């Protein structure tokens, strides 16, 4: 039977490789929060197999499952058969969009990004008390979540960079649009062009980004390869910070949440911890950390499309923070900060920050 869809052309063997052992149920954040096997990696592979075998059409019926995945890759990390579930899901989503089936939230996001500069269709970001588009050695690229949902955290990060005397500028950035690749669409070329032009105009040799997603998009996607060609480096703020020393310390018990986009997707686990250990003497790990980190539930567009389940997933992660008695939960991804922040219960007294935000606060306290 001729393969009808791209997901089958590229991944047929993989999908068949799924031995149905169900081990992915142990780590899938969506399954953990909903207990619905149809939403788990195994369930998704079974659905795709039914499509390949001609028993099911690839249509709206499957949206709730195929579009509800944070692409955290915990399943792949733990799959004894090595099935690359996130890649398969992303391709299947593109196939679904091609046949006109997509989750309305992502269809909406795609429409928004054709007209607006960010996923929220908002017009004015905070000015963060500075001019943009200056000439500087570094560009700090905030990302949509940091600009429009976690502006307080972002302001603190920028203040920290000021205190460290980093010569950086903001730009009139637009959405990197990397998320579209994961939800059935593609990066929007004129958004990519705008970002790159603005970056090149600053003369900067390095882009520091606060958002792990933008970090991956700039580094991995061909639409941004011109940056590499022009010798512009892209680093994530945790990589940038690890060479700095800080004179502040905290006695509070601190833990670190690995964002999926920084951890499992980029292998960046130790840099953030190195920085935290410099400022915290009581650092503890949550039970599922590094490549086993439990996803906060925001990624892959799930926060926009399945918000309630997304927050339920974040709540599960915070139970682990409570378990280890953390007073401060640090991470370095605005999406994680946002989702975890929303999920935190009033009775949970710990605070959630980006590491940069927290360091800045300690320095402010010292100055007081």
């Amino acid at each position: 039977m001729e393969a009808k869809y791209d997901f089958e052309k590229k991944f047929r063997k993989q999908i068949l490789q799924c031995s149905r052992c169900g081990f992915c149920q142990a780590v899938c954040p969506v399954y953990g929060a909903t207990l619905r096997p149809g939403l788990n990696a195994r369930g998704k592979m079974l659905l795709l197999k039914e499509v390949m075998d001609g028993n099911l059409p690839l249509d709206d019926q499957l949206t709730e499952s195929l579009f509800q995945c944070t692409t955290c890759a915990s399943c792949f990390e733990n799959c004894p058969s090595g099935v690359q579930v996130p890649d398969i899901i992303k391709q299947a989503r593109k196939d679904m969009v091609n046949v006109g089936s997509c989750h309305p939230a992502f269809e909406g996001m795609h429409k928004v990004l054709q007209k607006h500069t960010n996923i929220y269709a908002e017009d004015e970001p905070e000015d963060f008390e500075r001019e943009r588009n200056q000439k500087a050695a570094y560009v700090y690229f905030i990302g949509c979540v940091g600009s429009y949902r976690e502006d307080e955290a972002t302001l603190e990060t920028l203040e920290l960079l000021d205190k460290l005397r980093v010569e950086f500028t903001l730009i009139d950035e637009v959405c990197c649009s990397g998320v579209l690749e994961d939800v059935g669409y593609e990066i929007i070329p004129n958004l990519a062009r705008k970002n790159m032009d603005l970056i090149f105009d600053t003369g900067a040799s390095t882009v520091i980004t606060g958002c792990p997603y933008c970090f991956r998009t700039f580094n991995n996607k061909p639409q941004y390869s011109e940056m590499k060609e022009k010798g512009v480096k892209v680093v994530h703020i945790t990589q940038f910070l690890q060479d700095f020393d800080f004179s502040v310390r905290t006695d509070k018990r601190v833990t670190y949440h690995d964002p999926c986009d920084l951890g499992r997707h980029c292998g960046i686990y130790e840099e953030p911890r190195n920085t935290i250990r410099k400022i915290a003497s009581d650092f503890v790990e949550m039970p599922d950390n590094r490549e086993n980190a439990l996803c906060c539930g925001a990624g892959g567009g799930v926060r926009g499309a399945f918000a309630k389940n997304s927050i339920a997933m974040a709540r599960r992660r915070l139970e682990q923070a409570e378990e280890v008695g953390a007073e401060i939960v640090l991470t370095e991804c605005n999406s994680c900060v946002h989702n975890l922040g929303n999920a935190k219960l009033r009775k949970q007294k710990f605070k959630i920050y980006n590491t940069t935000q927290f360091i800045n606060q300690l320095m402010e306290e010292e100055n007081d």
Partner: protein
Amino acid sequence: MEEKLVKAIVDIVGEDHFTRNIIDLVSYACDASEHCNRPVCAVFTETTEQVADLMKLANREDIPVTPRGAGTGLSGMAVPIRGGIILDLSRMNKILKISIEDRLAVVQPGVIYADLEKALTPEGFFFPPDPASGKVSTLGGNVATNAGGLKGAKYGTTRDYVLGLQVVLPDGRIMRTGSKAMKSVSGYDLTRLFVGSEGTLGVVTEITFKINPKPTKTSTALATFDNLEDVGKAINQIMHSGIIPSALEILGRETLAAINQNTDLNLPEVDAMLLVETDGYTQEETAYQIEKVIRIFEANHPQEVKQAKTEAEVKDLWAARKSAYAVLSRIENSSVLEDVTVPMTHITELLKGIQDISRKHDIQIATFGHAGDGNLHPQILYDGYDPIQVEKKENAIKDLFELAIGLDGTLTGEHGIGLSKAPFMTLEHDPVAMNVMRTLKRTFDPNNILNPGKMALEG
């Protein structure tokens, strides 16, 4: 399904605990075996009363009901072969009580094995069976299949740890079996009837487990052999040594190769490797035991004998062993995992016999398993889309069962009969035994609605 039936079901469990969504049905059609059949609908119950009301309704209306936990069973016991309703118990997932002084834990069936372990660890206790699927499988599923695991030879299987159950019968009546006392011989041992009954006699809605203090120290060693005779001799001599290892696992050549392809362990690819663990409360104790085992290995022409030195090494070795099944399933698009078990004195014959079957039918069979209690796991790898290979697989399986029974063994040490092995029940059980089993089934479930079509119970 008639709308009035749908309404009756929704009245019992609530709208959001009922589904006919294709996304759910496709998952509920399958477990971890090669069998598949979609149910008409599925329900998630939260209380025993809901289970009872559902069974009453199903019994009255003649609707098949198939109970399900995590759906990781290997023989198809959770596959709804007659359609009907899937009864998903995974949301009944509370640990109700842990009493260290009474040495017991009371749990709902949807609790995941690993979550019970996590709750017991701070108390220094454990629930020994340790099935390889422990991170996902539910305790209800473990009870339904009398799950074994790596610790079987020393610690037994699930049935050795069930003190009592709460069960909903196929007609909806609720009953209790066993006792919270550590031992009881009051009335028939109904607990043991239900454990391993694969959800065909009743739905377990609460389990009281005996728990054990957990030995704090282990020693791990391995030995490789280039012929199966020596392996068999080594295994049998360990019996004479006076110690029982807490785990004694065997890995065959193909298994070792497959593990190497998926890890950095670089295990030697030999005819067989034995992986052994001894446990106790002091390192002296475990070292003493492992020394004895090592000496036995050394007396049987091993290629290499090695003791694991670091915690990381120990962790890696056991993780590799636990991944054997799914790692092997990367080789072909289909595989079937068997778990024939024979008395220990016949292990070598079984190992050799498996190799013969593989050659005879020209089909790949990789082997690993619990050498410590004679429970091997031959895994047959084949192309499920090639009818010739499928036929070879079926013939190989038939020979395998005949071989095991011929060696005084059993079709299944721990995975259960379900659908996969049902055609071979009469190979192992005499007509009287089969008749008694079928009579019991009819007594409990005269309308044959609870997990019908399994275990050759329909005669």
